[in-house]
């Protein structure tokens, strides 16, 4: 039996097919979860993919978080089930307060689609413990609102509690403004909830799943996660 990965689809979601492809390549079984339903259809891992749910018109993720599906996602998360939010999915998880902080307009005030390097900061929780801290991954970003922000005291808490999961970096893992594509605080590209089972990240691992696409590091991330979950 393989792991079943539920992929949430909101009106405006556009990377559900990319995610399904990625899940299949990693050996999982993708199943689409429609926003208006309350069922996770037996998903072991829930992925909230990229896109512009409800057009992101008010704030990215603001409307999507009220979807009936999100109630089920919340229950799953609170019960310790793994949840991964990618790009728009990360924004939704923040709006839903399943993750701390918020994602603001890129400081360059432009949309950015480009390759980035990410440094894994902690090997914690079902999604990341298969990766060594310090590992550098390469995968693309594609967003206009990816500048991570958390109020100062909360930020401190995140750092102290090992919740900062990924940072933008250079090819050798070095930090610097020139490697930070959106002005995120402390170069943060991804965060975990306190328990470590919910991960949000702006970069797109599903776009880095084949050599033909320029990188396989996104596949590595998912494979490591499925390996940690162990045999089903």
């Amino acid at each position: 039996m393989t792991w079943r990965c539920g992929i949430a689809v909101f009106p405006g979601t556009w990377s559900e097919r990319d995610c399904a492809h990625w899940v299949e390549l990693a050996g999982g079984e993708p199943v689409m979860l429609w926003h208006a339903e309350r069922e996770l259809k037996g998903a072991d891992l829930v992925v909230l993919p990229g896109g512009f749910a409800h057009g992101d018109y008010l704030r990215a993720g603001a409307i999507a978080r009220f979807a009936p599906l999100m109630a089920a996602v919340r229950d799953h998360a609170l019960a310790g089930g793994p949840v991964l939010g990618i790009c728009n999915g990360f924004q939704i998880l923040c709006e839903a307060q399943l993750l701390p902080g918020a994602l603001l307009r890129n400081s360059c005030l432009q949309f950015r689609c480009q390759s980035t390097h990410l440094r894994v900061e902690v090997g914690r929780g079902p999604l990341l413990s298969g990766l060594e801290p310090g590992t550098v991954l390469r995968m693309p970003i594609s967003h206009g609102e990816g500048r991570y922000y958390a109020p100062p005291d909360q930020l401190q808490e995140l750092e102290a509690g090992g919740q900062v999961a990924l940072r933008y970096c250079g090819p050798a893992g070095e930090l610097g403004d020139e490697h930070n594509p959106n002005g995120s605080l402390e170069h943060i590209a991804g965060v975990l909830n306190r328990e470590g089972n919910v991960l949000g990240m702006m970069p797109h691992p599903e776009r880095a799943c084949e050599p033909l696409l320029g990188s396989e590091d996104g596949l590595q991330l998912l494979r490591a996660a499925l390996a940690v979950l162990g045999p089903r």
Partner: protein
Amino acid sequence: MAAPSAAQLRELALTEEEYHHAVRQLGRAPNELELGMLGALWSEHCSYKTSRRLLSQLSSQAPQVVVGPGENAGVVDLGEGLLCCFKIESHNHPSAIEPVQGAATGVGGILRDVFAMGARPVALLDALRFGELGDPAQRHRFAKVVEGVGFYGNCIGVPTVGGETYFDDAYRGNCLVNAMCVGLVTAPRLLHAVARGVGNPVLLVGADTGRDGIHGATFASVQLDEGAEERRPAVQVGNPFLEKCLMEACLELAGSSALVGLQDCGAAGLTSSCAEMARRGGAGVRLDLDQVARRELGMTPYEVMLSESQERMVLVVERGRVEEVRAVFDRWELRSDVVGEVIAQEELQISSGGQMVARLPLSLLVEGFLPRRPPSSRPLEVERALRAAPLTGGSPWTLEEAWLRLLASPNCSDTSWIYRQYDHQVGDDTVVLPGWDAAVVRLRGRGDGLAVSVDGAHRSSLLDPRRGAQLAVAEAVRNLSCVGARPLALTNCLNFGNPEKEEVMWQLEEAVAGLAEACRQLALPVVSGNVSLYNDLSGDSIPPTPVVGVVGLVGDIRRLPGPGFAAAGDLIYVVGPGGTELGGSELQRLLGGMVLGPPPELDLELERRAAEAVRQLVSEGSARSAHDCSLGGLAVALAECCVAGGLGAVVRVGGQSIPADGGHALLFGEGSGRYVLSVDPAEGGRMEEVCAGWRVPCARLGEVGGDQVEIVGLARIPLAAAAAARLEGIAGAMAGPVL
């Protein structure tokens, strides 16, 4: 109704003659609503009354063509039951007025054309023209257009994989924004824009109808003058989110037998979509405007019929299956209303408040316009310009200086400032990203891919519009060859000035003839296109700017070379004819702008063979890199290969003696049909053999390596300087705040 005044007619873009023609044909005076509908459908934008007779020269005959011009988009067969559907369209006028929304709705419109055929859009491209970036107003317009293109494509989740951008003072008053969309559909799901089956309901779905863009079609058909800003029609604000839902719902229905026909509401809104669908189906349509959902109160039938509100589609559905179709739209939270039905009389009948308020025969509405044939003549200046020397004052620059300036020209430089604002990877299929020659999108479940490129050559077109159009086709084909793709078909957007000017009409005639000739010789069927005339602000016409989009097939996407030189020690070859013309070149523009001298010669037969040779070398894996010479000639192409690969090169060009012009033409001349290839030293023999087989000139220039780009005896620049210059162009000009 009293006969309309001249001013009223002008407002509708109708002439007195056209009005009287309508009266004669109808046997009565049309009422105001009917007149508005006629004005919109007889506008240049909808009827092609000036260009239609010229366009008949373009042939869509080829075995791979499934649908030629006349539908929403052209369709070619990719084999194994898969079809490719594509088209390019202009949104020049709206973008001049509101660049973000104008560009965005341009993208929205071309996407609808493609999914109206049942095809899922898989790639977008944009061809852009602005004035020079030294002018803050142009920087603003450029930034905002790029923002608008990105906004729509990024939100809807279709990758923007390529395009072309050119800055020239000649576009200061009239920017050009052309958008192309490519989609895929399996044969049984292909849809047509027809209304047939008497009694079948007609549905309007998507956005509510507002007072947007009323007279938009006629607006695009008259000259923009300075006062246009005052009487401009309401600008449309695009809603890509709504369109995304609309697209998903329509694609869900594409396979269903409940759907008879599907068409987007574009220019002239409901009027044109219903009229054209019915005309194609040999039927008529009756609409009840009371059923049309409106965004605003108090809209008149006139406003409803001519509204160009975005994100709407018209469907014809099998009788009795409306609920099934509406359920799909409901699921996507989209409004859908039955607004009419198919009738047997070949008419468009409109009722409102229980009364018939308009009734027009479709033959009159759709084909009854009076073709226009404005006089044309070749301007005398052209003769003089052609005979002039290309660089009248010579060049004050050393070769190195000229080389670096060319690399730093926004027209040759790195374009990542543009495409990094576009999501070019969503869909996980973009296997050759923008930034090089053609982009490649893989075809899922097969080993092959689609290559796409858009190109134009307006400076050569100013000198010789026939040649210019051919050069554009040749360049697109070369870009495809560089990724080993075989071209399948072409779409085109003809951007011209006011055709009522004799020289503009001449340019149009020449360009279409040139396009037809090039396509015939290169065996490229023309499957779709668009004409944008009246690109004239205050009487200044844009240069003739035919833009072509070519789609081709790459046999094996795993064998594609990366951009630029691959390894030190590789041999560098130039393949193709040896022209070095500077007429209309980028060097000439940098030196002062006048367009003079003969444009590049073009031997289409040799061009075809060179394309074959390069395609073969790339697809069999012999070439480790391939790039064509375009703006800035051989030297710029060479430097681009070096910068992209992060490797220097040492080459020899020309004979032993230094030419009289110091080598400018040799290095920077823009002769057509040339490619720079690199091969593993062991493959040098193969290279020469393949070229000889195709009877294509091929010369070994030198080797990859070192940290300079050196043309022995003439010029050399450090690799780092070349790289820095390439980043200076667009990114440098756009570094400051955009006001």
